């Protein structure tokens, strides 16, 4: 194993990459930490501002102090009254969980097909799947709406889930990790007489935990934050998702900043929890898969 043989082809290709990482990585630990702290501030400050604003009293919304002069839960009370936010949070949660599970399922199945077999038209289908990623949602929004209307599912939670049964991102990422799976293990399993279904669920999937957890986080978040499709679909506030609820505080006659921030904070907490829970899975699996 020579490091030189690996580095030469790539060295020519990406000088910009290396230069930038040289600055960013910081062999010097203090410099590295400083950069990370600055980045953390950059990432965190707007979110911090959102939470702090939601805790300000209604007449002091435009204050610029870093900590509220007085903590008030008025905005939360108003938000809870003005829109059925708890119901919306539940709806959003259900939709996000179901979509995540289903997309992982169909993604695993499809990725397995690509990784395990060579079959006629496989390249074509793979490209076709990848290309769907390019299709912006607005393009298919109205035809999907008409289809849902024909099915009689307007204003239902089911309709929020249906178009998301499969996604290119899930399939591509999973196919990518499956291809890296050690073939010896697969061969061994097949020698033992295991059929493809068992191999998928009992041999491959447990070892893809890191990728699956990362993907789960991403799918959950993207479904949670989805706006256009629920906006088109939901006719009553009780059947809609929390993003619609948040938007109701943004009118053309001005934003109701306090309740808006309160509703957004409430809408962000569940995702934060999911991230923390799943992150542990991701990290643990990293530790495990490192040892081969």
């Amino acid at each position, binding site marked *: 194993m020579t490091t030189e043989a690996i580095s030469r082809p790539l060295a020519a290709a990406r000088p910009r990459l290396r230069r930038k990482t040289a600055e960013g990585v910081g062999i010097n630990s203090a410099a590295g930490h400083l950069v990370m702290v600055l980045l953390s501030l950059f990432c965190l400050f707007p979110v911090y501002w959102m939470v702090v604003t939601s805790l300000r009293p209604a*007449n002091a919304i*435009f204050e610029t102090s870093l900590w509220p002069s007085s903590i008030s839960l008025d905005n939360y009370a108003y938000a809870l009254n*003005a*829109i059925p936010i708890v119901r919306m949070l539940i709806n959003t949660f259900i939709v996000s969980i179901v979509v995540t599970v289903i997309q992982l399922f169909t993604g695993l199945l499809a990725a397995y097909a690509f990784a395990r077999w060579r079959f006629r038209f496989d390249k074509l289908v793979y490209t076709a799947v990848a290309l769907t990623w390019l299709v912006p949602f607005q393009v298919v929004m*109205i035809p999907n*709406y*008409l289809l849902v*209307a*024909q099915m009689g599912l*307007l204003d239902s939670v089911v309709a929020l889930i249906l178009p998301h049964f499969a996604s290119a991102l899930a399939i591509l990422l999973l196919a990518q990790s499956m291809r890296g799976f050690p073939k010896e293990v697969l061969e061994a399993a097949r020698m033992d007489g295991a059929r493809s279904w068992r191999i998928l669920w009992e041999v491959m999937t447990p070892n893809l935990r890191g990728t699956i957890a990362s993907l789960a986080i991403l799918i959950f978040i993207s479904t949670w934050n989805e706006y256009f499709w629920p*906006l*088109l679909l939901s*006719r009553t*506030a009780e059947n809609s998702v929390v993003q619609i*609820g948040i938007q*109701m*505080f*943004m*009118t*053309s*006659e*001005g*934003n*109701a900043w306090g*309740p808006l921030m309160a509703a957004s904070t409430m809408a962000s907490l569940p995702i934060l929890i999911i991230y923390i829970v799943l992150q542990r899975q991701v990290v643990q699996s990293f530790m495990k898969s490192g040892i081969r």
Partner: protein
Amino acid sequence: MNRKTFLAGALALLATGPALAQAIPASVDQPVTITFYNYNLGSAGVGKDATEKLIAEFMAANPNITVQGVPYSAGDGNARLQADLAANQPVDLVQLGFNSLDYARTNYAAKALEDLIPADELAAHFDGMSPNGLKLGVLDGKTFGLAYTFSTPILFFNADLFKAAGLNPDAPPQTWAEVKAAALAIKDKTGKPGFTAGIFGPSAADWLFQGVVRSNNGSVLSADRKTLTFAEPAAVEAVAMIKDLYEGGAYENIDINAAMENMAAGNLGMYLQTSAVQGVLVKGATGKFDLRAAPMPRFGDKPTRPNNSGSALVILSSDPVKQRAAWELMKFLTSKHGYTIITSEIGYLPLRTDIVNDPEYLGNWIKDHPLVQPNLEQLSRLEPWDSMPGPNYSQIVKLMMDGAEMAVFGGADVQAALSDAQANAQALMP
């Protein structure tokens, strides 16, 4: 059902408009459900609360009629509305932005009131409404919409900043020249931006732009609705005036949302915008600064010719019973009581001028809210917001506004930019 009234009504109908397949019943005798597409329902706050209250009151008074309020966003080209029509969902009564009125007439099968309602019933309901207000929803001589939530452009100003700049807040600027002078004084003496307007911006469409152009006796659309005219001399002169305000430092280019917040926070001298934002401004001003209002500025001595912003109620249903139910709801919403709620609780203009001084309705409220006065005064000079014809109406408006923006903020030559835009947009006219 009163036979005589029905016969008289039917005869009147046959005599006036084109022959109809069916006349609508004079009242609703069986239970019926109608859908009411409304954009106030889509935002949390006073708009939604007041609308829900009105709907509840109506249903209590009309036990046979059930109203389903359907919120939709008027911003994105009426996506929900159009999608529902395409999906054959029942869409009976719509609160429609005036700029989509022509489109609704040709594409959504909007019904003309004269075709549906007996003439005497119509006349009785229109009695007491501002004649200018009624004209707002008229296309080709027929009333397709009744103005529902609408307002006029108002010059809000900060009296405290005026005093600090040495200006007299009791004599606000009446002409654009005075606006320029006042704005420069405010900027000079207080450091705060002097003036901005809600003319440009993604949510502005062209309603305020039309008002400014028209006040210089220009127009954007010809009377026969076939030719665009915003590159003609009077319009060019109006745009050149705005450009001069900007380049002279009087008109501050502030993002349309930020402008309202800055005004509410007391950081802006003058703000020309729809009176619908009054609620937000008043809330921000209470206890902080003295907020006042003046009518739209004039071009020299020419009287202003503002147009309205806002929406009209339009009937789309083709079922006679539902049409009657929708008309009953429309009558309720545009009644004296209806407008009282709309004006006092949401903040729009009342189409009925007679309730303004009537203590039973708005009389007392008006006394407590003097800011509404310029609004009411402009009602007598109100002209319709020209809705562009044809299927490409929104693209035409975008091209026009892009051209004007290039001229005002982008430093382009006004005549050239507008002529270019007009040529491009004319290609999209039907």
